[in-house]
């Protein structure tokens, strides 16, 4: 039981519920679907699972034009046609023109790999449906060469989604699901510690305070996320900004290097206004 369990890594803080979801998916060999706010480390999760369990990592990044078939294999008919025009010998074996996709790669790996299907919601609506059988049975059929590809080891499949499209029920039924919640202050502190172990305690707590204050400002168009906090702290460290400066005095309303946190002009204005109002109330 102890080996092959995921508990987060030295670079990645996993909450209890996330660990449970990953371990359940690994044990039962089912795909794990991960959703959550942008910047909460969905994509990173797969990398870290691969690292923690010491497995090869295969990434399949989905775009709006990607088809399910491309994950299995592609038949490069055009280059075969070209070769036939040139009269090459290899044209007689159709197998020369079958290009392996990411799923094939994962199925044929010697060690059980971790396969990340990133941002599945970017693809066409039919995309998840086209992969149902493949993910369920972990096998598929190559029509051109009449062979069935079966997974040597059921790969650990982690799928991320940004909620742009609803995924079909039949697909969801076959997955474990986890929604990465935005971390609370305690977890956030652990996350920052993992990335910046020698950050001064004082600076950290000031930075977190400011960060959550910004996040809670009502009406922001884009609320800053974990990855933005980490960027910001990196900048703070690089610029060697003292913790006191974060508090912001009366003259300087907005925290230093806010550009890392607020990515929208209207948000910056809004935040300035809010700060101004709250300060005036205090006086």
């Amino acid at each position, binding site marked *: 039981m102890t080996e092959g369990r995921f*508990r987060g890594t030295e670079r990645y803080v996993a909450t209890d519920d996330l660990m449970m979801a990953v371990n359940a998916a690994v044990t039962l060999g089912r795909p794990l679907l991960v959703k959550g706010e942008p910047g909460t480390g969905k994509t990173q999760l797969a990398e870290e699972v691969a690292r923690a369990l010491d497995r090869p990592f295969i990434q399949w990044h989905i775009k709006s034009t990607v088809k399910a078939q491309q994950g299995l294999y592609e038949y490069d008919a055009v280059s075969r046609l070209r070769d036939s025009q040139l009269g090459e010998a290899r044209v007689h074996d159709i197998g020369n023109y079958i290009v392996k996709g990411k799923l094939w790669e994962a199925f044929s790996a010697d060690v059980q790999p971790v396969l990340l299907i990133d941002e599945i919601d970017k693809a066409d*609506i*039919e995309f998840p449906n086209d992969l149902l059988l493949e993910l369920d049975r972990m096998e598929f059929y190559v029509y051109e060469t009449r062979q069935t590809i079966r997974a040597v080891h059921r790969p650990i499949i982690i799928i991320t989604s940004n*909620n*742009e499209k609803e995924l079909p*029920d039949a697909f969801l039924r076959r997955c474990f699901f986890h929604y990465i919640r935005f971390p609370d202050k305690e977890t956030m502190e652990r996350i920052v510690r993992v990335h910046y172990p020698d950050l001064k305690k004082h600076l950290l707590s000031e930075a977190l305070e400011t960060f959550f204050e910004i996040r809670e400002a009502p009406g922001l*168009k884009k609320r800053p996320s974990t990855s933005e906090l980490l960027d910001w702290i990196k900048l703070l460290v690089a610029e060697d900004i003292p913790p006191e400066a974060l508090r912001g005095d009366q003259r300087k309303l907005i925290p230093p290097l806010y550009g890392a946190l607020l990515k929208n002009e209207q948000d910056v204005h809004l935040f300035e206004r809010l700060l101004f109002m709250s300060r005036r109330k205090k006086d």
Partner: protein
Amino acid sequence: MMTDFFFKLRKASVPVTLTEFLTLLEALNQRVTAHSVEEFYYLARAALVKDERYYDRFDQVFASHFKGLETLFDGLAGVSVPLEWLRKLAELTLSEEDQQLIEAMGGWEKLMETFAQRMAEQEGRHQGGNKWIGTAGTSPYGAYGYNPEGIRIGQDVSRHRRAVKVWDRREFRNLDDTVELGTRNIKVALRRLRRFAREGAVEELDLDDTIRSTARNAGWLDLKMVPERHNAVKVLLFLDVGGSMDDHVRACEELFSAARSEFKHLEYFYFHNMVYEGLWKDNRRRYTEKIDTLTVLHTFTRDYKLILVGDATMSPYEITYPGGSVEHFNPEAGDVWINRLLAVWPQAIWLNPQTPNRWSYIPSIQMVRELMDDRMYPLTLEGLEQGIRALQRAR
């Protein structure tokens, strides 16, 4: 116990299916959890719930169903640990010396007996405390009761108290789609609308590029494909401002701000309570820059989808009588105008921020609903989704 839980979930309209339930049982069978109610909760949630908007409902059912049963898990935790499992674990973690010590104490069976005994004793004593079974001392229990890798056989009352809170806190409440819309929800809803905007990523032959590439290839054929793309959804948004809508203006603005980034063709107009002969685009200059509704009717083609947002709470006269408006003298009644809108844009819905259970008490809402052929939906995620579906239906 489990089957009841399954049916309770279904009753609370969490969409659980038998496959998912069997997955959970399989996971339990394979001992994915280490018999703690907290872990069981996480496992059940990952296996049964496939959308964060059902998390809250799941939490509620879980809390009500397993209330008082946490103690049951506590009992399981200590007593029914299978012997082989323990032994294997101990082999992994104990040193040679420790193992000899165990032999000295009378072997594994004896040890298990003492363990169970100790367990029972401790149950009586540690009420309210949070002491592990066998602290990490020299006791052999300690060696596996709390091993460095964090495998836990003991019980930790405070942990459980925290665990219960996980679902009692109901942190996912704002993800439930029947509650009113927040900025996040609304974006999700509008993305769903966008989903219909692009109908499939069909590939088509890019003739220009094919010719160019083939020429560059010295005449060898080189086919180029491009994804077919067309953003077909055009939306006309009519927003009610002022008066009884003031409470809902925020929700409307959120809908509006979200909508603007989702469509290429989006036109919006404001009205007050009811659509009459004039609309405006800027609320601050509503009296000076009025746009003729007829002009709007003539400008936008039939394939626009019309979304009216308003609480439809007003005096019935504002709908049925000329001159009924509270602001000005309107030569024609509101229902005339609504019918004109519907004649030009048959694909139309009315979104109402009022909660649906109040609709039947307000006569004007009933009237508008009738005018809209019942296509009035609450301004919640669920309502939006139904509305969007209604918009899709060809009329």
